[in-house]
Structure formats: structure tokens, C-alpha cells
């Protein structure tokens, strides 16, 4: 009986939590819901403070743990209590049917201030802007230890075949070519998938209609074959704890990473041979594609059921004002989201590779447009593949299964 009572209490606890929080919320204020980790971002905290300060209005910020947010999201947007959702396409937003649950913002004044890649990232399939991006525009790239390369007389690869040769050469001279962690696992496959489906829209439609499956797309199979080869050849150093010591020490030469994490490459302590300035970027070349992945921008989405639409749009306008976002992103290492964004700090590596970035960057298409796509499930499958637990064909089969 006690156990039953305990289970019951645990089950209704979230409900009481929301109700309790609601009870303390300002009913005239906008209610913004999102992941608790996201709300920790400096630029978000800055903009919320600025808004409150500048407008004198308050905001009801409701933060959810990661494991519950997606489950509650559908119910939340169905209520009138939630005005704005902070979310992004990296999760299964498509399943929420944005066209029905969120207000289109294509005609807002700030739409033209978005850089092209940012605009693509916050648009649905019909190119309707569904949210205001307010996130660092990280670049998924292959960070390599340039100083180490110079030391060995090597240079960055410019083609997939050179990339493979590079890995072979590094491995041959005793350096593990690639470091991967749970947080960057998706960069092994997702940027390449983005590039494939960005160009092959017909293939994407066929895949979503169930006419074909992953194993019938040669370019996709090549990506996963390459991943499996990395595992087979010993070219991967897998670090579940996202520790970068091996990178700094020079045991590992490269890492697929967003700039967000590259910021973490900070070994200026002198404990290690290499520091962040030693790293440069080259495109990700897992498979036949040469690509950089633009980041999945989190955005403010206005719920279709909000009773404070004007107030919500006013909030977004506040955020989209150049003065405000420049203050919010001041010093944040990111690529531009807004054209007038001038206070961000772009890493030298990205600056050096700007021509390549312009040539090979692709928006994150796979996670947004592949029906039933789940990054979490994909990561699980890829983990099995890199651990050599499954074959390429089995991985592809599981990927198809995961979309059902």
C-alpha cells in the first residue's frame, strides 16, 4: 500500500510542480517554456533581463528537465497558458506539426535581418519562419591539431579520399586520428546526411513516403561504411566523458565538433602540449560529402493558443533588435545569426576557413525533415556501430525501424 501511494505521489508530482509554479506566476506576463539547460545560456539570461529592464514587464520562465520536456511539449502547447516555447529542430519538432501549433513569423520585420543559413534553420518545409532564432550559430566541423600536422609535415585534407589517407598516415605514425564523445557522436553521420538530403530532396521524399529505405541510398550507406571503417581501423578514440585531454596531449589529432565545444578546448593552463590556438578546421568528410553543419538554432516559437500574441511578438521584436541581441551575444563565440550581429567572437579557426565554410556549409536538414528522425535513437545505433556491435546493414535497418 505504501508502495502504491509512493508511485501515485511520484506520478502526480510534475502536475503539482507546474500548478504550484503557475500559482506563483504573473498572469499578465508572457510564459516561456523550455529546457532548463537551455535557459542557462548567458545570452538568454542577458536578453530576459534586458527585456524586463527595458519594458518593465515580467516573464514567466518555466524550465523543464531534458527527459520530460519533449513529453510534455505537446500538452503544453495545447493549453492557453504557454505563450512562447524555446525549442529547436534538433529535437523532434516536426512531429509537433509547427504549422498547426505555432504562429508563422515570416512577415515580421526582423526576418530580413537573419543570415541565410539561420533563416533556413528556423523555417519549415514551406520556407515559413516559425520562430526567432536566438542561439549561438555553432559550426559543426572537423577540428584538427594544425601544429601537430605541421610538426609531421602534414596538411588538412581537402577531399574525402585525402581525409582517409590522412587518417591512415596519422594512425601509421602512432597518432589516433579522431576523437569522439557522446555529445559529438551525431557529427559522425548527421552533417553528411544533411548534405545528402539537402541536395537530394527527391530521395528525402521517397524516404519519408517509405518508398525506399536507408540501405537503398548509396551515399548514406557510404557514410555508415566509413564510420564502421573508423571503428575497424582503430581511428576512433571514443570518450564518453567528453574529455579532451587526449586532444590536448596530441594523442588524438582531430575531432568533429561544434564551435560551442571547441570553446572548451582551452588548454592554456600549460599542462598540455597543445592549446586552442593550435586547432584549425576542415570540412567533415565522412562519406563522399564535404560539409560543415550549421548549428540547430534554438528559437522562440509563439504558441498558436497564446492569448498574448501581440505581447509575444513584441518580445520577439525586442530580441531581434540589433542593439539588444548585440548586447546579449557580446563576446559569445559564434557565427552570425543576424546580419547586424557584430559583437560575437568568431574563432580564428573559423575565420581562417571562411572560404571553405562558405563553400561547404549545409543546414541541418536531416533532423528536421526526415520523418520520424530521432537524434537520440540515431546516436544509440551509431554507438553500436562504432563499438562494432552491429554491421552497417544492421545499423541501416535499425535506423529505418527507429523512424516507425
Amino acid at each position, binding site marked *: 500500500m505504501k508502495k502504491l501511494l509512493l508511485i501515485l505521489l511520484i506520478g502526480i508530482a510534475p502536475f503539482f510542480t507546474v500548478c504550484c509554479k503557475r500559482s506563483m506566476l504573473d498572469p499578465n506576463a508572457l510564459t516561456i517554456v523550455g529546457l532548463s539547460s537551455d535557459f542557462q545560456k548567458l545570452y538568454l539570461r542577458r536578453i530576459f533581463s534586458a527585456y524586463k529592464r527595458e519594458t518593465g514587464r515580467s516573464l514567466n520562465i518555466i524550465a523543464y528537465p531534458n527527459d520530460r520536456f519533449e513529453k510534455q511539449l505537446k500538452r503544453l502547447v495545447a493549453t492557453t497558458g504557454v505563450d512562447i516555447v524555446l525549442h529547436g529542430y534538433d529535437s523532434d519538432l516536426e512531429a509537433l506539426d509547427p504549422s498547426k501549433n505555432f504562429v508563422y513569423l515570416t512577415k515580421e520585420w526582423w526576418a530580413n535581418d537573419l543570415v541565410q543559413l539561420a533563416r533556413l534553420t528556423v523555417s519549415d518545409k514551406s520556407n515559413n519562419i516559425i520562430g526567432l532564432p536566438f542561439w549561438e550559430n555553432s559550426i559543426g566541423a572537423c577540428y584538427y591539431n594544425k601544429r601537430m*600536422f*605541421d*610538426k*609531421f*609535415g*602534414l*596538411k*588538412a*585534407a*581537402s*577531399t574525402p*579520399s*585525402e581525409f*582517409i*589517407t*590522412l587518417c591512415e*598516415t596519422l*594512425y*601509421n*605514425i*602512432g597518432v589516433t586520428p579522431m576523437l569522439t564523445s557522446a555529445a559529438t557522436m551525431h557529427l559522425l553521420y548527421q552533417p553528411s546526411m544533411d548534405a545528402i538530403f539537402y541536395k537530394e530532396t527527391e530521395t528525402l521524399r521517397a524516404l519519408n513516403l517509405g518508398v525506399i529505405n536507408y540501405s537503398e541510398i548509396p551515399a548514406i550507406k557510404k557514410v555508415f561504411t566509413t564510420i564502421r571503417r573508423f571503428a575497424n581501423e582503430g581511428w576512433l578514440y571514443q570518450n564518453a566523458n567528453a574529455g579532451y585531454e587526449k586532444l590536448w596531449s596530441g594523442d588524438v589529432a582531430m575531432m568533429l565538433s561544434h564551435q560551442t565545444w571547441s570553446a572548451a578546448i582551452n588548454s592554456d593552463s600549460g599542462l598540455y602540449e597543445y592549446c586552442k590556438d593550435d586547432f584549425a578546421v576542415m570540412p567533415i568528410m565522412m562519406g563522399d560529402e564535404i560539409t560543415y553543419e550549421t548549428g540547430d538554432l534554438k528559437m522562440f516559437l509563439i504558441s498558436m493558443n497564446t492569448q498574448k500574441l501581440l505581447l509575444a511578438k513584441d518580445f520577439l521584436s525586442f530580441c531581434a533588435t540589433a542593439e539588444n541581441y548585440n548586447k546579449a551575444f557580446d563576446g559569445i563565440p559564434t557565427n552570425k545569426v543576424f546580419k547586424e550581429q557584430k559583437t560575437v567572437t568568431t574563432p580564428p579557426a573559423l575565420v581562417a576557413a571562411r*572560404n571553405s565554410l562558405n563553400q561547404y556549409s549545409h543546414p541541418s536538414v536531416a533532423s528536421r525533415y526526415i520523418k520520424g528522425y530521432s537524434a537520440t535513437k540515431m546516436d544509440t545505433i551509431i554507438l553500436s556501430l562504432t563499438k562494432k556491435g552491429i554491421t552497417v546493414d544492421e545499423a541501416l535497418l535499425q535506423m529505418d525501424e527507429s523512424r516507425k
Partner: protein
Amino acid sequence: MEADTFDECATHVTEVYKQVTKSFVSIVMQNWQALSDWNERIALLKTDDDIDNYLNTRRNFWRFSQFFFISDDGHYLSMDGDKGKFSLANSFSDDVLNFDRNKKSVFFEELPPHGTLKGSSIAVATFATKRATYKGFEYSAIGVGYLNEDIIRILSIDSFGGAASCFIVSSNGLVVLSTKVGENIFKNYLTYLEQASNLSSEEMLQLKKEWQPFTVTTGHDINTMRWKSKTAALGGQGTTNISGVGLTAYKWGVIRCKIGKEQTFISYHNMNYGGFVVLGVVSDKVAGSRARQIQHSTIVTLLKTFTVLIIFMLIQLHKTNKRQRQKSAVALKYKELLFDILSTNVDDIFVLVDGATGRGEYVSPNVERLLGLKLEGNSDYERVTQILMSTAANNLEPTSHRDRPVKNIYDSKVLSNIAIDDNYQWNCEHTNYSTGEKRYYRESVYHVNIQDTNKYVFVLSDRTAEREMMQKMEAALTVAKNANNAKSNFLSNMSHDIRTPMNAITGFIILLDKNARDEKKVHEYTKKITSAASLLLELINNVLDMSKIESGKTQLSVEPFEIQKVLDDVYTVNSEAARAKAQFFELHKIGNLNIVLLGDKLRVSQIFTNLLSNAIKYTPTGGIIDFTVEKLPQTKALYTKLRFTVKDNGIGMSEDFLKTLYEPFMREKNKATKNIQGTGLGMAITKNFVDLMGGVISVKSKEGEGTTFTVDLSFPTQSKQSDPATAVALNAADGVSDVSDENDALDIKKTTADSGESPTNKNHNHADSADSGSDKNLLQNGDKDASNSKKQDESATDISGLHFLIAEDNELNAEILQELLKMKGATFESVSNGKEVCDLYAKLPQKTFDAILMDVQMPIMDGLAAAKAIRKMKKGDSKSIPIVAMTANAFAEDIKNALDAGMNAHIAKPLDLDAMCQILASLTKRKRK
């Protein structure tokens, strides 16, 4: 790796990259030469447009990527208008920008991302010029640029199966060109080797030195276990393959070291110009395998050659065998086909039986045709074999062979006793299962050994036809023997039967001659001579009849005849002989016989005459002879069936003799027949005549008790008043020739018969006439007045006073006839052929002759022709004058021919005087009346 292997690998790697070096140098040299030429041409062109046009033609021809006008400070203006500045980071000459006249250079550049080539990596060859201006740009050199990938394509390095790397590096190790796709990851190869290889610091220093510019005199050769290098002046020995490119010295070397985990060959080729080095990197595994491949390739080539030769020989052998097999197969096929055709069509059945199991393994297909046994398939051999065996076993007709008795050849014990290559043969009769026909086979079994297996080959040879032929031949032989015997018998009989009367005749003639004065004896002897002559004549007539019968020439002369008259005539003719033996001879007629039948009257008469004469002959004096004729019930319309019975109580015949009764010349010889004359042909003739008429003759006889002959004959019936047309129609239907209405000869016989109405027989009573109330006529020989009879006889033969015309070509016969006529008181005129007859007859007045006696066979004109001629004459009596044929042609046909020729009667030779006189008297008497 051993020293030899190292040397081999090093040599091979060096040779490969020498070729690469030569290719690269050739490209550079050709472009330098081209730039020199173009420079001269450009200097002559007046406008920039002319220069543009000219350079475009050159680009189309040389397919370079860009053409540069270069200033002293490294700035450039391309023919496409691109501007920039060369970094000259990858230059092979430190003084590349100090363009003196004819100064040449090569360097590699990465172009900026803008412009026509957009950041491409290119190789640029430059050539110093006079200072000049192009589109306002002052330049002191010109250069032509190629994309690196074009250089790589031109070099076409694909040695070691693509597993090797090739670089063009500067003397300080900077990699300016990687000729392998996917290899462009090295920035500085010396640095790479320094970090990644196991080369020592000293070795690295030496290597760097090796890549530096040098002179032939300062060049230092290296020759260690893992490093070899050589410096030579171009054009010298061993460097001819890269001579002619305008270079002065050439250093090349190869070093083996470990890079990372892998042993590697590094081949370097320092051209001593601008500081560029062609570098080849081949893993030990690849180079070794290549060296081993070369080693092995020789062995493999030899092996392949040997193998090919072996294979070729094997193929030839195989082909030869195959051809042989094919030939054998074809031959075998032909043999099988031939065997199939033979076994199907010949009348020999082949059966193959396994000696161990006794099972049939093969049966030739003709078994179906010959024995009606169907072969349902190969598996059916055993069944058919068993049937054949069982049939043969039941019908075995053993024939001794090799003195061994054969009981049942199919008995396995019997088979096992047959030695290999020996055989048994026997005869056997099989019945065709399909037709039921019995076939006679000669069967053989051969014991053969085929590959240590005992086999028995049975051959069933159909000898049915052969056997039938043999039987026929045996029968024919028997017939021939019989015929020969018959001939011998005939000759013997004839000799005997002719000699017997001839003996009597000659004997009595002698006696007659001696007793000529004794009238009684003369008369007695004459009578006996006449009897013997009669017998001889009878014999001749019978022989002739028999001869005609046996030759198949006997034909029935069908004509209407009154049976009753024939019977009476027969009775009359035979009653005399019966009367002479005092026999009681009766003719019984049962039923109305007053009918006219169609048939051969003469043959019918002859049948009964023969039967009756025999009855009389073989019945002792005083015996009884009954001749009964009865009309049997009619069984066929328009036919009358009669039964004739001749019964006597004579000596009878034995049973044995009865079996040969109808055979010619067969006479029973015993005491009773010892003194009875006969030819032995009578019954044979009688039987043949009966058969010819479709009748049946049967006999019952017992020795000492008598004999009864029964003859059943059927005749077409013709009423007495029936019109001749009916008779003709009937005869025609029977295929018989025409019928004569008038026949004087019949009348004569009838008359003759009439003359015998008064038979004498002292032992019997007789009645003068037949019982009027009964169908039964009874003619009885009895006592009549002999003198009266004699008178009547004399009257009937009286020809005295008559005058005859006789025609006879044979003088002797003519004389006899003449004497006989004289003896009878007649007169005559005699001629020797038919023409003379005609002539004489025509010459003399009518009624000069009472009759004409005409021989038939005569020269000039035969009797028949003469008769016809006379009948055709228009003389008064030419149609009525009696013409009598007198001829030795005594057959029925001859008689008929004579009558047909218009003659009135036929008298056969030898002449029977009485008969002749009777006929002549009859003919002339009637006329006289």
C-alpha cells in the same frame, strides 16, 4: 630484407621514378621552349588584342590553364584579366624574380579564391623577357600555368598498382605536388620523415643534403645496406634515359626506412635545377611484392608456358582421344544401328543371358515380329527370355551335337557344361503368340566370356521357310522318283502288254503259215490273231487316252444325248462279250430315263464300257453282272443326277489292291488274274473321266465275292423337244464348243447296239422286251436263231457292188484297204492325196462313187480340207456323197474334226473290217434306199 632483395627493389623503384622525373622535366622543358617561342611572337604583335588572339590559339593547342604576364615584384596579369601576386612560397629558385634574359623558373602556387581559377593549385613555368607592357601592365617575364591535376594526369603515374606515392618536393622538403589523388596531405616531406620515420638525425641531414643543389664534382655516392645514391653528369653512362632535357647533372638515390609502422622505400631524384626533387614512396610490402612479382613473373611465365604447353598437349591428346572416341562412338553407333536394323529385319532372334543370374539382358526387337512377344522396354528382356526358355524347354527337339545328349538346354547345369567359346545347337518349334503360326527354329547357344563375366548368347534362327522348302523338295523328289518308277513301270508294262499280244500274233502267224492248208486251224489261228490284235488295239487306245488325260489335254465334248440310248448301246456292245462267257448280264433302268442330257456321250460310254468289260473280264463264266442305272433325287435345278452301278460276283479285289486301283498300269496279280489280259489303264482312265465330269466313283470289293462300282454323275437336262438354242445356251454357259444336230455316228452306234438285240447265252433265260409296266428294262442275252443272226450280220456288212473313191498316201495301207474292199466285192478308184480326190471327184460324173474313203493326214491336201472342198462343190451329190474318214487319229477330237469337216463317219485305224463294212453298208444302204 636481404641485400639482393633490397638491391632489386631499389633498382626497380629507381627506374620507375626516373621515368616520372623524365616526364616532369619534359613538361617543364617543353613549356620553357614554348614560352621562348611565344615571347618572340608576342614581341612582334602590335596590339593587346593581337596578343589575346594569339594566346587563345596557343591555349587551345597546349591546353594550359592560364597565361601570366609577371612583373619584377611578383604581380601578375593573366590573359583572362585576373590580377594578383604570386606568393612564390613554393618556388624552386631563390632568385625566381630576378628575371634575367632567358632566365627560366618553375613554381607552384595556390591562387586566391577569386578570379578565373578560384583558388586552384597550379604549376607555373616562367620565362624572362624584355620589359614590355600588356594592357598597361609592365612585365618582365611571362608564365604558363597548369592545374596540378593536369600535371598529375600528364605524368600518369600508376606504377605499383597505384599503391605507391609520388611527390614533387622542394629541396627543403616542401611538397608542391602530389601526383596521387588523396595523397595531398603532406606539407613537408622531410618534416614528415623526420617525425614519422626511423631515420636517424645523421641520416636526415644526409638526406636533406642529397636534396640540395649540387655539382657533379661535389656529388657523393652512397652505398649502404639500406641506402644507395648516385650522382652523374647528364649524358653519362646510366643516365641516358633522362638526357636531352637540358639539365647538367642528376642525382638519384633510394633509401629504405620505417615510416610509422611500415617499412618504406623512398626514391628521390634531384634534377639539380631550381631545387625540385621527384620523390617516390613505396611501401616495402608493395616494392617487395613487385620485386618478388618480377622474380615470380619469370617463374610464372615459365610455368605458364610449360602449363600452356602441357595444357596444349593435353588438349591435343584430349582432342585426339575425343576424335578417336567420336570415331569409335560413330562406329559403335553404326554398328548398333546396323545391328538394330539386322536384328529387327532378319529372322534370327538374339538373346543374351547372364551366366551368373540366368537373367535375360537383351532380346532382339524382331522377337515381336517373329514370335509375337512384345518388348515393353529394356526391363522386359527377362520376361521375354523366360517365355522363350519355357517354350523351348517344352518343345525341345534335340539334335545331337558333339556326341552330347541335349535334354533341356536352358537348364543351368547344361549351360554350365558348355565350355567357353563352345556352343550347342538344336531344333525347336515356337508358336507365334500373336498369330498362332507355328515356326520352326534352329537354336544355338554360345558360351562367351566378356570381361570375366559368363554370358550365353542364344540365337534362334527361323528355319521355317527352309524347312518347308526341304519338305517340298523331298515331296518333289518323291514325286520325281514315283514318276520315274511310273515311267519304268509304264515302259515295263507297255513292253509286256505289247509283247504279249504281239507274241500271240507272230506266233499264230507262224502257225498259220505252217498250217495254211488246214482250214480249221487257219480259222482258229486267225481268230486268235484277231483277238490279240484287238487287245493290242485296246492297249494303244487306252495308252493314248491316258496320255491325253495326264497331259491335261482331255476336254469333254458336251452335246445333247439320250442317256437311254447310250445305256442301250453300252449294253449291246458288252453283251456280246458277256454272252461269250455265258454270263448273266442285266441292265436295270430305274426311273424315267427317257431324257436328253448334256454331256460327253463318248466318255460316258467309255466309263461304263470300261467298268462292264472289267466286270465281264474278271467274272468267271456263268457269273452275274448287273448294270443298274437309277435316277437320283434332283438336287440342282436343270440337272439330272444318275447313279450307275456295275455289280458282279467275280473274283473281287484285295484290300491292298483297292488302294492302287485307279493308278495306271496297276493290275492285281494272282492266280485268278493270271490268264486275264488287260492294260491296267482302264480304271485310271475311268476315274479321270468321272473326275472330269464332276462325278464320284466308289468301289466295294471282296476277293472271291465280287465287286461293285458306283458312279454318280450329274448332267444338265434338256427336254427332248427343247430348241437347239437352249442347248447352245447351256453349252455356251459351260464353255463348251458348238453342238452338231446331226450325227450319223450316233445313229450308227445305235444301230450297232440294235444289232445286238439278240444276245445268246445258254446259261440264262431272257425276255425279248422290257416289262412295259415297269421302268425296268431288261435286256437279256439268250438263244436266238444263229443263222438268222448271221444273215442279219452279213446284210449289215454287205458292201459288194459298191464303188468307192479311196484316198490313202500310205501304199501299204492303201493296198490293205484295196484288198479288203475287193474281198468284200466292192470296187474303187485310189488316189494318194486330197487334191487328187477333189480333182477326180470333180472330174467324174455325179454318183460315180457310192462313198469316199478318206485318209486324213495326206500330203498336198489333207483329208479334212478335201472333204470341205467337196462339200463346197456345186456338183449334184457333193453334199450327200458319204465321206468316211479313215485315220490313225482316233481321239474324240479327231472324230469331231472329221464330222466338222463334213465327213459322215470316222473309222479308226487299224481297220476293223466288219466295223468298216457296217458303216459303209449303213451309209450306202440308206442312200440307196
